[in-house]
């Protein structure tokens, strides 16, 4: 009767399952927000105050939902604060003091992110080819630390922008360099979540390829174009909408890229490549659906937020500006994908190929538009 009783035992609700650690984490976030509010309220408009406290809710939930996030967020907070502290309000110290020069100035931190991501990619491939459990563990660890350094880089950069001049200061998601960093981080995070969820590390080898590609772009952008500097915001971008529109978009982009790479893995398995090493097709198929579903949901939100922003900045919620239009194309594309899968119950190669091609469409919407088409979207021209 024991086991029977236990199975009869009501499963505690989500909140009941939270540990002391969870609540401590949330409290810490709240404390941080209250402190920030107490200190900077006079500089914030009502939206920013709203964001500050919504952030507490959102990140608490993230930490509760995906426990490793708690550690990550705390880590980001501590390292960023340390980095910011090193400045003593003087930007020049970025290449004078040891810690800033080699670790925590935004440029160095992001450089570390790049290096770690590339190493992680190598690690995942080693794990895949040599069937090495250990290499896989190391690769995950590297990915986590890359994410950590990346976010620290962005945080410090945010602060640096205010050191340049108070009126220049802005959240670092406003030009191609910054959003590429964001892209790497979000893609990696979503992957790490599913890595845990499906208890498989083999896919890292594929997913990290996209991230590494983005890293290469960042490097080219930094050294080839010397475009990694902090630029003041053009008037159109000075809006609180940016703070939510852009991240939402990149959750979409990230998830879609993830799905595409899983699609590639699926196609490999189908052709007997790595078949014995990679997860079973059903798992891959499910993985693909889940990340496209997440991507679709957030991409929808992002597009809607974009429309609301446009309504405020350009005088119309929809102007058929190339970026908008391509967002619509991407959206329709995945709507069709979901229909085929959910309504027609379709599975297999078509969906896999579609997901892969979807990435091309998405990439064009993200990059191609800025490179080849002119429009109202006033940032990120190459």
């Amino acid at each position, binding site marked *: 009767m024991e086991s029977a009783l236990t199975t009869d035992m009501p499963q505690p609700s989500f909140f009941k399952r939270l540990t002391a650690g969870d609540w401590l984490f949330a409290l810490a976030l709240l404390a941080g927000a209250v402190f920030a509010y107490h200190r900077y309220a006079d500089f914030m408009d009502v939206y920013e105050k709203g964001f500050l406290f919504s952030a507490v809710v959102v990140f608490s939930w993230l930490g509760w939902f995906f426990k490793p996030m708690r550690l990550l967020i705390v880590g980001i907070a501590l390292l960023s604060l340390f980095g910011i502290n090193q400045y003593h309000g003087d930007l020049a110290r970025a290449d004078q003091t040891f810690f800033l020069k080699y670790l925590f100035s935004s440029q160095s931190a992001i450089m570390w992110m790049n290096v770690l991501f590339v190493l992680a990619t190598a690690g995942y491939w080693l794990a895949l080819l040599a069937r090495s459990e250990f290499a896989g563990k190391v690769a995950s660890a590297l990915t986590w630390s890359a994410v950590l350094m990346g976010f620290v880089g962005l945080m410090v950069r945010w602060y640096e922008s205010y050191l340049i001049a108070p009126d220049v200061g802005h959240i670092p998601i406003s030009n191609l360099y910054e959003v590429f960093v964001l892209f790497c981080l979000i893609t990696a995070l979503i992957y790490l979540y599913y890595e845990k969820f499906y208890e498989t590390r083999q896919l890292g080898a594929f997913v990290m390829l996209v991230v590494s590609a983005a890293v290469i772009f960042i490097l080219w952008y930094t050294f080839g174009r010397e475009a990694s500097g902090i630029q*003041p915001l053009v*008037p159109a971008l000075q*809006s609180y909408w940016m703070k939510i529109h852009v991240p939402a978009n990149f959750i979409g982009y990230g998830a879609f890229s993830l799905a595409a790479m899983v699609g590639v893995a699926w196609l490999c398995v189908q052709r007997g490549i790595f078949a014995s090493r990679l997860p079973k097709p059903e798992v891959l198929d499910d993985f693909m659906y889940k990340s496209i579903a997440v991507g679709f949901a957030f991409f929808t939100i992002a597009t809607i937020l974009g429309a609301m922003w446009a309504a405020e900045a350009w005088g119309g919620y929809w102007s058929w500006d190339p970026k908008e239009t391509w967002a619509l194309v991407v959206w329709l594309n995945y709507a069709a994908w979901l229909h085929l899968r959910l309504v027609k119950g379709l599975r297999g190669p078509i969906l896999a190929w579609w997901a892969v091609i979807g990435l091309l469409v998405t990439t064009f919407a993200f990059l191609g538009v800025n490179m080849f088409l002119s*429009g109202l979207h006033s940032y990120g021209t190459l």
Partner: protein
Amino acid sequence: MKTPNLSTSRALYELFSSMRFAISLLTILGIASIIGTVLKQNEPYVNYVAQFGQFWFDIFEMLGLYDVYHAAWFLALLTFLVASTSLCIYRNTPIMLHELKTFREHATEKSLRAFGHQQEYAFGGNVDDVVKRLAAFLTVRGFRHRSVPQANGDILLAAKAGSYQRLGYIFTHVAIVVICIGGLMDGNVPLKIEELLGYKTVETRDVPSTEVPPQSRLSPANLSFRGNMTLPEGMTGNVAFVRIRDGYLVQELPFMVTLKQFRIEHYATGQPKSFESDVEIRDPELKEPLKATISVNHPLIYKGIAIYQSDFQDGGSQLDFNVWPLRGAAHEPGKMQGNVFKDFTLGEGDSALKVELDDFRLFNVLNLSPDDKGKSQNVGPSVTFKVRDTQGQAREYLSYMQPLMLDGHAYFVSGMRATQNEDFKYLRIPADGENSLGDYMRLRGMLLDPAMAPVIAKRMSGKMLEGQNANPEMVAKFESSMVHLLEAFARDGYTEVAKLLEQSVPEAERDKAAEAYFKVITSAAYEGLAMSRAQAGLSAPEPDERTQRFVGDALNSMSDISFYGTPFYLELNGFEQRQASGFQLTRSPGKNLVYGGSVLLVLGIFAMIYLRERRIWLLVKPESQHVLFAMSANRKNRDFENEYARYAEQLQALFKG
């Protein structure tokens, strides 16, 4: 007895409400929208003609490719989508709602045994107790259930969870329809219809808004529009222009807008930081005018019309010029005053030149470092103007008011081009010690004045041959060749000097001679500078590196004067800026529909993705002491399989007891 057209309409209904049709529509719509991003929309038609040639231009125009998103066929496509989706909703909603309600408690044992996911367990003990436990089992797992006694004494527990997923479908698709309708409302469809019916015609002439005839005007009552209005500071407007294809319509406004002031603020780096317009709204219904400031991202909404800061331009600034002669001996500037968008004439008769002032810029952020690596900075005001001769030939000019620092030295810079599509060629005039054009112009007057050549020659010979008691004819020879040289330079700078060289010097010695010529001209220029400054009652130039360089640069720019094309140089030396602000005015009643629909859409999608409808049947059979467990979901996927396996196992455990 079905009539044929009934069955065809049936077939149409089938087609429209089918997934295949929906997917095809989505795809076509996607492709169609891409066209508009590849082909730049709403350009002036002349550009298209230039780009494609008349033949293709006509075809593309017929297809409405210059404004795809308002082309009839595109709107038709959207309408189809709405229709198809609505039919789909009409068709599926009843099913979904039924699914939402029903517990499927009529499932028979036979059908349950046919399930892919079913398993049977033996139990011992009291039936009611088992039923109670199973009920608990379901409840704690979030399943709601009905228990139905069967005719043969069995008890069926029919349970389900996550049914609201079905609402997700309804929400998503209703949202699509709502959004599209909202969009169509604002996508000037009504206007399109009026146009088709011939009530409205697009105005293509460039006439004052007051002269635009009624059939090209839209009344203030117009429900939805998106137009533009450009106001110079201090001016008032009460109409907006709605651009349509190669023309426009005049949208009358229920109020008057006055632009008090337009402001641009800049970052320290010179990039623009904000565009702001102080406006006043006048309206009979208002006691006193409504004052407001409009800036990017901060529109003003009045009477349901939103006014946005969209762009800006010059509003007719007043400009003062020094007109420096570039020909002959004269070297004193004349004065001229003009306004942007107006013109004035210099000279008379056939040589009269019309100066059309096109634009004035207060800030110009340029990167003057040779490799473009350095910092950009603001180099101050600039003016663009055209100079048109009596034949109507025009050249375009771009001049900067203040001298620009180019590798460490200050130059007055003015660009010239003969046609719009070539880039400017720049004349660089070295600024003198007072950062003015004075020295240069005086020197120019001296060197380019034939009458002065002998005088300079005399001074030179005096200096150079002094001491070495040279015989007179040698002096004369020296001077005449010197005069030749100077005259040549006066005609067309170094180009003429080169010609002279070719005529008078044999091949072999040219290089040496060229060097000598260059030296002579330079020192002549130095003399000229000294003389001209003396004439103007100014101190003699310092014989230093700076002066040397000045002379060199001066000579270079003089030999460029002929390409520059005008017999005068317009130096901007004063201005009174007047700006014009560009507004966009919109009334979009569809907006609320679109936003409402968006909320529905998000709710719907999350419901569809994150709620999973599952059903469980537990058939308790007292006399055979068995329980039949069956499970199903409308979407069979991995999560479902895992969940089924888990429950099967837990039930196993439960009955082991």
